[in-house]
């Protein structure tokens, strides 16, 4: 089957972007993955579902991002010994995705790394929590096990173990450095410490409640995830979002991008020895979240996006205040940028640190900001624009050096572009309602929400059950793709540069751990 044929075979999938769902057998699963790879597609997400209660089988899904659409392959596995063909030979990110899928659901890939990823010993080895027979609130004795890191041998090589609790106020993860002197030969990360069983939790919720949990998958991307959830639900119920609601959601999404970028720019300055930058940017960020509180009644916009629209509709005065703030930032950010760019010490730390080459970024399917700083021209707001981005026409920021400096430059560029988008959204805010009541959803339907958050594409795959309940909900954060790239970017750098390099990626732990 050629790719074109494949795409004709499948059926359209309810989503906020063009998407198709294609049922395949094991041979087609492999053949198509290979073809999608050759056509420049990247593996976005991999998840499974226990449908033994319905038709006696498990299902495994793989979502691929193509330049013009999302393709979801669906493969059915017999209930007794569920094994599916591994995808990691073509898509390196599949490695960890396959391990996570096994830990949660017991679907086994026929190759790749077999070490556990999410299960650190908190539940028994042959218990798969996402299976339907496992109770949602059941808990187990904890037997944490040591993790077999890949050892590096040679003269003078030693290991530095860091985490899961770090020196600063950041999320937990473990990093194992193999070093000679202070030079890093290899870094291996072990994550999964913040795994909260979110997918299982979703199955206890009604479709109308799910957005609150989605908003808490990753706190700094709350707008992106709750929008993705609501987009999936709205696609399944086939409603059209009021134009005003879409614009307000985009406004919230861009403000989330601004808040995170401003925070990161400050922290990056600080990590490079310029505490002044931290204080300046932290002040700007605080002003932004205070205005969020005033206008949207939530500093970080938690629960702002709700099914059918948004929670708060700002009045005329609020629009004025938001425009004034944009004007303030349009002056302040370029001034600080000039200071960063003219500061020899800062530039010395930024340039050539933590290089991720465009070839490597492409081969590993780097997503979002990290990809764009290494020449991967992908931004869903530009490539697959959903309303209101179809009329906004955002400009894509791009750099190719792939070092810390490029990731800083990208953040500056995206701040300015987000400010432009906010301005345009506020000046052309459509009249009308910002909330719509959702009709009841049909049972057994799958919908996808795909949103370009500040880190990159976040995806929610939502399947409905009877009585307006969630049957299955899978969330994907772009950090899955980008975490392994930190391990490459650090090679050959010195250990003391790790905080700076890691911060320039600023990936999610909670978002990826689930």
């Amino acid at each position: 089957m050629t790719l074109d044929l494949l795409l004709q075979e499948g059926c359209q999938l309810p989503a906020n972007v063009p998407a198709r769902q294609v049922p395949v057998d094991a041979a087609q699963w492999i053949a198509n993955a290979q073809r999608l790879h050759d056509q420049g597609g990247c593996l976005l997400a991999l998840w499974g579902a226990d449908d033994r209660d319905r038709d006696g089988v498990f299902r495994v899904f793989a979502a691929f991002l193509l330049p013009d659409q999302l393709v979801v392959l669906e493969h059915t596995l017999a209930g007794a010994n569920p094994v599916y063909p591994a995808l990691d030979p073509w898509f390196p990110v599949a490695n960890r995705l396959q391990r996570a899928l096994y830990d949660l659901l017991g679907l086994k890939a026929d190759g790749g790394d077999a070490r556990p990823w999410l299960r650190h010993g908190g539940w028994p080895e042959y218990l798969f929590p996402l299976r339907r027979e496992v109770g949602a609130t059941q808990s187990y004795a904890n037997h944490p096990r040591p993790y077999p890191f890949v050892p590096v041998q040679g003269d003078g090589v030693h290991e530095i173990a860091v985490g899961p609790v770090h020196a600063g106020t950041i999320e937990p993860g473990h990093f194992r450095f193999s070093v000679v002197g202070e030079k890093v030969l290899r870094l291996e990360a072990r994550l999964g410490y913040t795994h909260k069983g979110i997918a299982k939790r979703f199955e206890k919720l009604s479709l109308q409640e799910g957005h609150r949990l989605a908003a808490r998958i990753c706190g700094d991307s709350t707008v992106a995830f709750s929008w993705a959830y609501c987009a999936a639900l709205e696609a399944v119920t086939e409603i059209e979002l009021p134009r005003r609601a879409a614009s307000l959601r985009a406004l919230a999404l861009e403000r989330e991008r601004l808040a995170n970028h401003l925070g990161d720019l400050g922290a990056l300055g600080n990590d490079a020895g310029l505490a002044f930058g931290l204080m300046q940017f932290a002040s700007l960020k605080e002003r932004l979240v205070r205005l969020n509180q005033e206008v949207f009644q939530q500093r970080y916009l938690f629960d702002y996006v709700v099914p059918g629209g948004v929670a708060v509709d700002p009045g005329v005065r609020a629009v004025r205040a938001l425009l004034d703030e944009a004007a303030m930032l349009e002056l302040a950010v370029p001034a600080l940028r000039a200071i960063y760019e003219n500061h020899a010490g800062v530039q010395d730390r930024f340039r050539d640190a933590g290089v991720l080459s465009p070839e490597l970024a492409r081969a590993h399917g780097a997503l979002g900001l990290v990809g764009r700083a290494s020449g991967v021209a992908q931004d869903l707001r530009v490539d697959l624009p959903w309303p209101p981005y179809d009329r906004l026409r955002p400009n894509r920021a791009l750099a190719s050096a792939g070092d810390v400096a490029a990731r800083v430059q990208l953040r500056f560029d995206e701040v300015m572009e987000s400010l432009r988008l906010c301005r345009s959204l506020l000046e052309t805010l459509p009249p009308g309602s910002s909330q719509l009541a959702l009709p009841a959803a049909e049972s057994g339907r799958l919908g996808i929400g795909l949103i370009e958050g500040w880190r990159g594409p976040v995806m929610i795959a939502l399947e409905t059950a009877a009585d307006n309940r969630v049957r299955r909900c899978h969330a994907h954060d772009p950090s899955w793709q980008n975490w392994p790239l930190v391990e490459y970017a650090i090679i050959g750098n010195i250990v003391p540069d790790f905080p700076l390099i890691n911060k320039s990626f600023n990936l999610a732990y909670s978002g990826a751990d689930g």
Partner: protein
Amino acid sequence: MFDILNRVRRNGILSEALPELEQPDAAVEKLQRQLQAVFGRALRIRHVDAGSCNGCELEIHALSNPYYNLEGSGMAFVASPRHADVLLVTGPVAVNMEDALRRTYDAMPEPKWVMAVGDCGACGGVFGESYATRGPISAVIPVDIVVNGCPPTPQVLLRGLLQITLQRQP
């Protein structure tokens, strides 16, 4: 260098530069004075993320920005639990963090206080108790004070820090 100094001079003391925010700022200032009276300049804080969504961390970070100026009131975050008086714990205690949380707590010298931060720390929040989470922080280590909110605002966090010490006054 001149640019930097110029910017610092122009920005001035930020909490005074925002007239529309006078109310909350005055409250923060008062709190900071009280904190200083209680702690002298000695309170050291260690934070552990026991599986939070990272929302609570955003607000803990905000405590250090010029508006809340935590360090100005004598408190500071430290890199090791061995240097800490107070442990701020966020999240619904992911089982994968249970062991690390216990060990961090054990590493702190006496006397020590624990503040459970956010709805998750209070009761497990939206995540509750499951195969992957233990629910409230108090299910794993002794907790002295609970600060609700999802996430709690910096003011609420500051208030919680003050209350902790008042509770323990002889």
